[in-house]
Every structure is written in structure tokens, then in C-alpha cells.
């Protein structure tokens, strides 16, 4: 699936910007590792609802609120979002959003970066 890795591509000036979903997912996994399962589950439900309603504003509001932490783990994700945050076409947004959600979901049952 190498060819789908960079899904969203746009041109800013002379520079090509790419959306690397793989990287995004990894950053998400890294960030939410230490959170409790219940917290994450609630967060995921909220995010899912936002995507379903195609509400980009609400989605980013919820997400940014969740990662608004000074912790080291969130740095990478914040950096990525800083790069990629944009009003995206619907199709791209869903993929972007579900990647984040799946990233969070894959960390259930983990605390302190170690699997139980």
C-alpha cells in the first residue's frame, strides 16, 4: 500500500506539501499511550461523532483540546498538526480523521508505553 501512503498533496508556492498518514498515526499512538482507557474511549466516541457529521471544526476543537498538554509525548503530534492543519476536502478529511482515531484506538490497554 506504499502508493497510498501520501494521500493528500497540495502545492504551496513552489513547495509540495504532503500528508503522511502513516507518520500521523504513529505520532498519535505515541501521544496517547499513557492516557487511561476510559478517557480514550470517550474521546474516540466524540471524535467519531464529529467525523460522522462531517464537522471539521468540532473535530479539531475536540482533538486540540485533548492534546493541549505540555508533555513530551504530544510534541510530535502537535508539530504534525501544525504542519498539516488545513481546511481539507471532505474525502481527505475523513481519511485524516480516521487515521487519528485508529491511532488512538490502537493504544488501548497500554500504560507507560508498555503493553500489558
Amino acid at each position, binding site marked *: *500500500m506504499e502508493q*497510498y501512503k501520501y494521500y493528500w498533496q497540495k502545492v504551496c508556492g513552489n513547495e509540495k506539501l504532503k500528508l503522511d498518514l502513516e507518520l500521523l498515526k504513529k505520532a498519535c499512538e505515541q501521544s496517547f499511550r499513557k492516557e487511561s*482507557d476510559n478517557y480514550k474511549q470517550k474521546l474516540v466516541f466524540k471524535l*467519531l461523532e464529529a*467525523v460522522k457529521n462531517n464537522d471539521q471544526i468540532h473535530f479539531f476543537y475536540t482533538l486540540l483540546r485533548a492534546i493541549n498538554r505540555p508533555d513530551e509525548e504530544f510534541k510530535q503530534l502537535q508539530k504534525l498538526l501544525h504542519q498539516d492543519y488545513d481546511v481539507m476536502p471532505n474525502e481527505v478529511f475523513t*481519511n485524516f480523521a*480516521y487515521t487519528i482515531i485508529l491511532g488512538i*484506538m*490502537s493504544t488501548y490497554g497500554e500504560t507507560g508505553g508498555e503493553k500489558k
Partner: protein
Amino acid sequence: MRAHTIDTSSNSNYNVSSLQFTGNWYIDAGIFGFIKIMEEVYGWDLYKLDEMISKDPIKVYYGYFPFAYILKASKNSINKKSNVKEIILELERELERKTFSGDEEKYKKEIYNTILGFVVKVLGEFFNDQLTKDVKNYEDFIRKLNEEKEKTKTKIKNYLEKMENKSEDIKSLIEFCSSQKGINKAIKDIVKKIKSGKLKLEKEVDDSILYLYELLRLRLPLESTFYRNFLFYNPSYTLEKQVNSLFDVISSNISRQPILSFIDKTINKFLYSEQEFKNVSYTLLRSEQLAACIQYLFVYLICFEYAFIRYDDMGRMFFYSPDLSFCYRVNKKLEAMKELAEEKVDTNKIITITWEKVIDTLFEKKSSWSLENMYIISYRGMDAQKQSLIDVEYIGIPKLQASFLLDDKIRTALNKRIKYRKIENRFASKWVILEFIKGYSLYSLALAHIKLAINENMPLGPFETLLYSLILDAKLNEIRTRGEDVEKVIFSDRYFDNYKWIVEEVKREVRYTSLISPLIREVSKDEDKRREFARKLMTTLKDKDLFLYNLLRELNINKTLCTNEEMNRFIFNKLILNNINWRNYGLILILDLVR
């Protein structure tokens, strides 16, 4: 393959060394039909027939063939007569004795006439029946004649006028009849009577003339769904005319039978009609040119319909390959298998066996070339009124599809029928391989089937078949959109690889998917809940957003499943990142939920 050679020497018939395909499918189908008829009647296989032809083509084409053809095209009841076998043996002995005298035309006639005697022998009973009927008709006629004395005069006059035109016919018929050996006694008597001068054709209305007039209607009981009015099939043709026209057909005598001068719908229903489509051929290709290249062209053309094997539920089918011996082997095996399967009344078996046999033969012959150049031609039947074919299909096997079929595992998986629709308590089903060859989407077939299983509680078809169909469909779609268009491959080295790389990719994908996707069953231990979930996913298959929403929501409730790294990666790679064929993988998940 060698083409038929055009030989300009005087006794050209002796140069046809063996049967060869021409590369033109309807002539080749005819050649195959010819081989089949000969095999059926005399029990010769292709090699024996070849041998016979190279020994003495005239004996085969003017002797053995017309007998076999008339027998085959006659009404079924005649074929089943018990003494046919003895007559055939006798005929073979008789023909064996004939030797080439040096005069080709004379030799042809001699052989042909010998055979006709045997035809009359076989059909004797049938002729007798017809004659008795005719005698009755004649008696009725005489009785009526006596009853209505007033009108008799004009009737006789009319009749005489009619007979005036017929007298030539009668004379030649008498000659023809007297030259026959095995001819029916009743006919002989009349011939004797006429010869002894008891009858004067021009003046008297003699009993026997009337009888003879009826006799003129005596004809070979030839019947075919393919031909209605074609030469000897024409109901108005007399026995003699039938016999003569068959001779003309064998000898490609176009000058005497102008109907043969074009090869069009008259002779083969698969062709266009010369009157309806005048502009189809740019040059007026007359059959003379073709007949010059292919000896006995019309012999093959009239055998066309016998090349097809009849399947009860699929109509008539012919597997054509430009390689004669391959085509022969495949069709022969299919026929044998068809009989076997019919005994067990299992249509599914026919289908399963069909491809096994084709591929087996391929491996024997070690040629994928043959499969790639194969065609399946099928039609359901003939419309007797319009004289046109119903449901004709020409199915070629593309190179890409051929490479998949050559793989045992994939072929076995696809070689199944699956149900896809319910019409009034009955289900319609489709043969997956055929759909694949035709290039139809296997996804929609699988979707329809799984839908049926979920909504109607139907038993689900073989998991392997559905999995392979979905992955195959997904892979082909992926390759097409990836830009590695199959057509582009033609100019690369991969072309000669026979698409083995795609086959490998598909198999790898199947291995991977069949390992991961069953994990989705962990969603719930309760079967009803799983089914409910599957139904929910099914309704959202059209919308990727909703599908993912439903899937992830369910997984979010059951937290353990999405922490499985493989499952997580599967969803990410195959569903989220994949915009081309995520449906195929989604459907695989659904399939796993309900199986």
C-alpha cells in the same frame, strides 16, 4: 498449422493429406462437426479419419460422409434402428472393394450411388410408411374422381397439364430409381411397369402415374433446427433433387447451385445475410475463391451445428481453439464428461468438470497459447420463425484471465456456481469462472450473494470462492489504477511472464487477508450480534465514511480487538488508505462476520 494447399494438378482430390483448421472459426467449427459425425457413425477418431482421408479422400467425402450425414440429420427414430450397425459394416465392406478407375468424375458418382443404396436400405421402413400413406391418398383421389363425374373432365385436364411439367422429373426419377440396388420393392414394381411400356405419360391418366406423382414427394426425412429451406432440407424438394443437391454441395458445384455462391446467413446462421447487410464485405467475396482454397468447404459448412455440445441449462456450447488436435481433445473430453454428469443429473458437476478438463488437456499439451486463443461460442437455440439464433455469446479468454485460470488454486476456487438472486422462491446462480472470463466484476456478484445470505438466511457459498473473487477483483482494480495498465505491459518484459507476477500478488494477498480478517469475529461471541453488525455494515458499504464510523464505533466498544496490531494495520491500510477497493476488503470483513 498448414493451410489447405491449392493444387492445380488434375486429380487434386488426392492431395488433401489431412484435416487442418483454417483459422476461421465457423469453418473450423464445421470441420470439427464433420469429425464428430464421422466418429459417431463409424467410430473413427481424428487420427483414423486422417488416415482414411489420406488414403482415399473421394471415398470419405463422397461415400462415408453422405451416409453418415443423412443418418445424423434424419429423424431420430431412424438412427435407433437395430440393424443400422450391420448395414454400416456391409457398407464399409462394399466401399473397401471399390477401386479408383482413373476417371475421377465417374469414380465419384460410383461411390456416391453405392452409398445411396445403403441410405435407402436404412430408410426403407420409413419410405414404406410414407408409401402406404400415399397409396391411401391415391385411393381417395380415385374414389372422389368417380363420385364427381361431372367435374372429372376438367380435373383430368388440369392434372395432365400438371403432369406435363413433371414428365421430365418423372423420367429422371425412373432412371435414378432403377440404378439403385437396395430400393424398395414397391418402387421397383412401378418402375418395371413404366419401363415395360404399360404407361404412356403424355396421354393417359393411369393409376400408376398418380402413384408416381405421389412418389415424387418421397424424400429423405432430413430435419435440422439450423436449416429450414436450405437445399435438401427444403420440404418441396423431391428425393432425387435432395440427392443431387447433396452431391453438388459435396463437390462445391456452385454453378449448379447458385445458392452456394455466397457464404452468408443461408448456410450459417452466425453470419450476416447478404440481402440485409450488403455493405458488410467491401469486396464481394464469392465462395468460389474460398472453395478453391479449402476443398470440400461446403461439407464442413453444413456440419457446423454438430460441433456444439448441448447442455440442458446453458444451451449449446462449443470450445474453439485454432489448434485442431487440442480442440478435438477438449471437446471430446467434455462430451464424455457431460454424459457422465447427466447420468447423475448434476449440472454443477458439468461446470466443475468443464474447466478441469480444458486445463488438464492444456497441461498435457503444455501450451498456454491454446488457452489464450480459445473461444467459447454458445447459443441457446434457434428461433424457428425468424431463423435467427437466441442468446449468442462469443467469449474469448483474455491473456490476463488465462494466466489466472492456469493456476490450480485460483481456478479451483473460482470453479463454482454461486447463487445471487431470488426470483419467486427460485434462485438464479452464476458460474464465477465464466463471469471472470467475460470480464465482469466479481465484486458485485459476491456482494449479491452475501446480501442474499444475510437477508434471506441462505447458506453461504464456499468461503474460498468468495475470498478469491473479492481479492482478485481488488487486485485487478488496483493494478489498473496504479497505472500499470495491463495494456502497457504488452511492451514490457512482463508480458512474456504471462502475468505470473499478478497471480503471485493475488495469492500473497489472499494469504494475508485470510489470516487477518477472521479476527473481526472477536467483536462478539454471539452469532446473532455478529449478524446484526454485519447487516449494519452492509447497509453502509456505499459510503466509506459511514462504514468506517460503524466499524470503528463497534471496535471502540470492544477495546481489545483494535489493539491487535495486525487488525489495526489491516483497517488502516486496506480501508482508510485505500480509496480504490476498500469495498472489497470491507465485504471480506462482513463475510467473515457471517460465515
